[in-house]
């Protein structure tokens, strides 16, 4: 994955005939060629010695054009010098469309190609001024949301920098220029409609809902109860719509407790909401108290309702000052509250920034481990996972139902409920199940993607931005690492989701909540990311996947097992190349193919036998000649 096709091709050409090149299986080459995830992953090619063969420069990608999606238009192209942090300046031509920045090297010995969706750009800065003297000191520095920077040096004369700066700013930050995001211009067609993946009624029906205790309500059909909640909600049967309205008044942003997941056997539930509006004076609300009790009683359990407040307790207390707070013992007799000590969006943002500092452009050499520790990133991952394990365990053990909230119930709460559901319900570990999980717990329940990512927005320092969703995907990756056979999807699936979290090519992650999406007619006017993925599922499948229904997965939330996700965070560094666990995977795939082949042969043989054709004469050759025998070490 770290090498693009053209560099591979060139590589193979360049090797003298005497050297026997390990032949790549065609599957691998083609999968690289078809890697449509917009990635700049071609640094590898720059490692080639500079004095390498020039004779094949003639073939150097001359007839390749800039890739273009339907609806994508070329705006400009410029000759620039790309200042590669790993291998120094490289002359190239940059093409800017309304969707991407595409760079192709003009140097004969480098096939560097770069394909960056403009949505990934978080900040564009000019470097150097009119008086800059040093070589390549005048140009642009582009900070990306996906852990890298791009630097281009431009000629001082002819306003080329000003042009490029303005065009990039315009198309990378369309919101400030009253332009639409590219997703609204994208005319791609797929044979699957990703918008059809999630249907809340169907998903609740899968969970066995509605039932005697829980009902589906349309009280929020026009988002009048809660603007940031989905139209369709599952609430206790015994709570009337009026009850819900009164509870809404006591929950931050009206995000009332509603069902996320119900255990198919013990009927314990995971319920999510925002913090109660307790305030300094310690306000109480009988309706809210009663409502929580109703939730507790849905499974006729006498145990208390467990409330997990995702925040550190100090923060929960501090929230009282702004009108928020938590459920106190004296008001909620039948509930037990635990704090999960997960920090807020600002802490997470700074933590990720530190991760970037130690991995880009160069990986911290001498004190890698302590530097990693000082970012606290894995520590945060550990806490999120620990919280989710606790939620899952409470529900799975049948001890009690669980209510989860943080402040507003759209960041940490979404992380906890979705991870707990992933641990509890094997359905969410399939490709479509995971899409439904994201669609449900994140998108429909109003994780503020637009604010957290800042799609098309130039305010790079906005305090609302935070890598909460990335952190969730990282947790999923950690789980998939610990349970390599439990997930239908592979690492590429997760990376593709993250790439399109920023790309603005699909409507999936745009805007902050369902009501806003409805207003903008997102499902009608844009394509869903799941269309891309589901129309090409094979690429995203984990061959080791073993479907196991009703198996609860508890990852080990210990630093001994948590790892930095190198293939995501350090993927731009050619020295830290994708390791090759893929080799194991590849070997497995070969065996799979062999098995299928044998099964086919066996069927053919059976057919031949049953039709009583004399086997000796028709058999074209001996079996050992016909098929490659497996090399085993038995």
């Amino acid at each position, binding site marked *: 994955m770290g090498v693009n096709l053209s560099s591979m091709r060139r590589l193979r050409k360049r090797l003298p005939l005497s050297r026997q090149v390990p032949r790549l299986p065609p599957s691998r080459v083609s999968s690289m060629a078809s890697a449509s995830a917009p990635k700049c992953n071609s640094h590898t090619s720059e490692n080639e010695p500079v004095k390498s063969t020039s004779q094949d420069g003639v073939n150097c990608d001359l007839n390749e054009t800039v890739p273009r999606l339907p609806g994508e238009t070329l705006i400009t192209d410029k000759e620039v010098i790309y200042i590669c942090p790993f291998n120094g300046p490289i002359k190239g031509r940059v093409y800017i469309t309304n969707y991407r920045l595409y760079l192709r090297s003009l140097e004969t010995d480098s096939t560097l190609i770069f394909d960056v969706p403009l949505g990934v750009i978080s900040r564009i800065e000019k470097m150097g001024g009119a008086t800059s003297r040093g070589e390549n000191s005048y140009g642009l520095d582009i900070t990306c949301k996906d852990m890298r920077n791009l630097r281009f040096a431009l000629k001082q004369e002819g306003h080329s920098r000003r042009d490029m700066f303005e065009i990039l700013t315009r198309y990378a930050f369309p919101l400030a220029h009253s332009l639409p995001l590219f997703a609204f211009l994208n005319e791609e067609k797929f044979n699957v409609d990703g918008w059809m993946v999630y249907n809340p009624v169907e998903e609740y029906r899968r969970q066995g809902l509605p039932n005697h205790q829980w009902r589906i309500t349309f009280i929020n059909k026009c988002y009048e109860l809660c603007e940031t909640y989905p139209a369709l909600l599952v609430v206790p049967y015994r709570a009337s719509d009026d009850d819900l309205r009164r509870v809404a008044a006591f929950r931050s942003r009206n995000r009332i407790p509603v069902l996320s997941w119900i255990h198919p056997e013990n009927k314990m539930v995971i319920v999510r909401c925002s913090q109660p509006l307790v305030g300094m004076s310690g306000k109480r609300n009988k309706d809210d108290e009663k409502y929580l009790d109703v939730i507790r009683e849905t499974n006729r359990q006498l145990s208390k309702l467990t409330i997990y407040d995702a925040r550190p307790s100090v923060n929960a207390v501090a929230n009282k000052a702004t009108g928020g707070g938590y459920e106190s013992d004296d008001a909620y007799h039948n509930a037990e509250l635990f704090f999960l000590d997960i920090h807020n969006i*600002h802490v997470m943002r700074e933590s990720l920034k530190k991760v970037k500092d130690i991995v880009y452009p160069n990986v911290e050499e001498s004190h890698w481990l302590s530097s990693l520790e000082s970012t606290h990133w894995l520590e945060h991952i550990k806490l999120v996972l620990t919280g989710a394990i606790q939620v899952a365990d409470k529900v799975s053990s049948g001890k009690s139902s669980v209510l989860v909230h943080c402040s507003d119930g759209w960041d940490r709460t979404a992380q906890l409920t979705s991870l707990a559901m992933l641990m509890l319900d094997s359905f969410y570990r399939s490709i479509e199940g995971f899409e439904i999980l994201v669609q449900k717990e994140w998108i429909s329940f109003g994780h503020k993607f637009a604010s957290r990512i800042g799609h098309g927005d130039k305010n790079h320092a906005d305090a609302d931005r935070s890598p909460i969703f990335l952190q969730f995907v990282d947790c999923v990756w950690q789980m998939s690492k610990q349970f390599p056979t439990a997930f239908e999807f592979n690492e590429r699936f997760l990376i593709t989701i993250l790439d399109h979290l920023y790309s603005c090519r699909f409507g999936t992650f745009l805007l902050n909540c369902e009501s806003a999406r409805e207003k903008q007619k997102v499902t009608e006017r844009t394509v869903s990311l799941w269309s891309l993925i589901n129309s090409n599922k094979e690429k995203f499948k984990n061959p080791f996947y073993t479907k196991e229904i009703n198996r609860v997965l508890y990852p080990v939330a210990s630093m001994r097992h948590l790892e930095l996700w190198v293939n995501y965070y350090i993927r731009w560094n050619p020295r830290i190349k994708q390791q090759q666990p893929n080799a194991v995977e590849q070997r497995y795939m070969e065996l799979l193919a062999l098995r299928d082949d044998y099964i086919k042969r066996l069927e053919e043989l059976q057919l031949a036998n049953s039709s009583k054709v004399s086997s000796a004469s028709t058999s074209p050759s001996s079996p050992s000649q016909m098929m490659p025998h497996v090399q085993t070490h038995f």
Partner: protein
Amino acid sequence: MLGKGVVGGGGGTKTPKPSFVSYVRPEEIHTNEKEVTEKEVTLHLLPGEQLLCEASAVLKYVQEESCQRGVCGRLVCTDFKIAFLGDDEPALDNAETQFKNKIIGENDITLHCVDQIFGVFDEKKKSLFGQLKKYPEKLIIHCKDLRVFHFCLRYTKEEEVKRIVSGIIHHTQAPKLLKRLFLFSYAAAAQSIIATSPKDHTVMFDTLKDWCWELERTKGNVKYKAVSVNEGYRICERLPAYFVVPTPLPEEDVRRFQGHGIPIWCWSCHNGSALLKMSALPKEQDDVILQIHKSFLDGIYKIIHRPPYEIVKTEDLSSNFLSLQEIQTAYSKFKQLFLIDNSTEFWDTDIKWFSLLESSSWLDIIRRCLKKAIEITECLEAQNVNVLLLEENASDLCCLISSLVQVMMDAHCRTKTGFQSLIQKEWVMGGHCFLDRCNHLRQSDKEEVPVFLLFLDCVWQLVHQFPPAFEFTETYLTVLSDSLYIPIFSTFFFNSPHQKDTNMHRRQLSLPLTQPKSSPKRGFFREETDHLIKNLLGKRISKLINSSDELQDNFREFYDNWHSKPTDYHGLLLPHIEGPEIKVWAQRYLRWIPEAQILGGGRVATMSKLIEMMEEVQSLQEKIDERHHSQQRLQAEAPCLLRNSARLSSLFPFALLQRHSSKPILPTSGWKALGDEEDLAKREDEFVDLGDV
């Protein structure tokens, strides 16, 4: 395994036996004393093994779901091992017995495997050695394979406590004579059993023929010759009877300083350049002798500096590289991270895990070794020069670096027999002082340095990064590392081939993994497990290294260039050495820690899928073959050895199914201060205007 009877959830209907008591209420043990004495679990003794002392009514603590429980039984000490015999040994189910270690049971500790012994006196933990005045109420044993045992002696008769404690301390810690190694009594007693000569393909390098074969294999025979000048150890006891030197080197030179100061051949590269080693001449003050040394060395260099020999680059490992002291210090710190007494300790250290790891420097030392090996590889492969490794005795870092270089450059060394032959050539015949470095005789702690383990850890990094390039898996390496402390195999119990030859009169058992079926000591595990040990991914490795097309003149370029190309698993192999790529050998180091167990997960999950698939393909293949020769009936399905793959844990096959319940393990320690981010942490996620509420 012992947990089985205790945890109701996992064991099903089985109720806890009265002999299993929680150690918080250990008084109960007295009520059961009768029952205890009635049940005698037999102690399994190896041929030649003798029971030395024993104590009954000992409680062994078992970690279970963050609480400890006691299992009652006998603690015995033989001249081979310390063993705990639980009164209620739960019957092992099939999957468990299948992968059971055949020599060392779950509660067996070979005497050589004992690292440190602690006694607990009034809640205080003290290291135990020598003569004791007072006997502890609790015994904690830290093992070299990183197991930790806790034995409670509070209910044991006083004289039995005295006998067992002093017995254990004496037999594990008092200096021992070589003659008293269990190895010899075992060999004498087991003669009849091991009489069959092993059909072993490992090259032992104890004959001239073996060396000639190796020279031929690497095409080193053009410029180097095998010599028998040291036959019968006439010249020195440090060198093997046979070894290889540059062809023109006169035998007289070998004799001159008892083998010091002469270049000894390790390996030849496909391009003709060679890896050589030399032990330094004795240190001298006297000017005259120094002058003699100098002219001797000049003479030597003249021989190997001339064509047909390549230019020689010397690499002084005793002055410009790691010191043995550093290695020892780092490992002592490192191993402490895994010798964990209880759950609290595990989670307390978890939060500082990375900085603790870093402060041990063990991973950094691995990195430096790998880097040095890459540098030397670059010289041989790219610069086409000879590399001469220098070290005082040429038997520590020389062994490490030269064998690492060979693993990286010579695909043959990545097969199982190739790797074993390499260990035989570079370590056993290379005169690595296993006896001293492992401190098997407890004669001097100062000499104890885990050089060989460091080598295995370096190889593990390569296996981890490039699994398809090796015929063996990490499990093989882990088992190999354990065999260092099992005095049945003679391989790692001598300081030199001379010492071995003078003490062993017959060929002893060698490495455990390639013995023929008839031998009872063939493997640690049953045959089936060998599937796991053999790497299923390694395709046949036979090709030698291809010639590289470009010569670079520095390390970085060489390294980057190699890594920018697709990996040829049969060719040169260079490890990634960046910080994130050097990892902890989790299988070896974390295998006994229940908190670190991933139930139904870990690498074994994919491995067992692979095995299942291989078996399926194989049986299909057989079916097709049979159809073609249709006289045969269909055979029974190949046995599926890992049928319950989902139930295996990441600790497989070492600590089997320690945790039967599916309860998650939750961290118990709190949050570490954020330091400079404190102000951020206090902020609201976003400004919430709740004024109108």
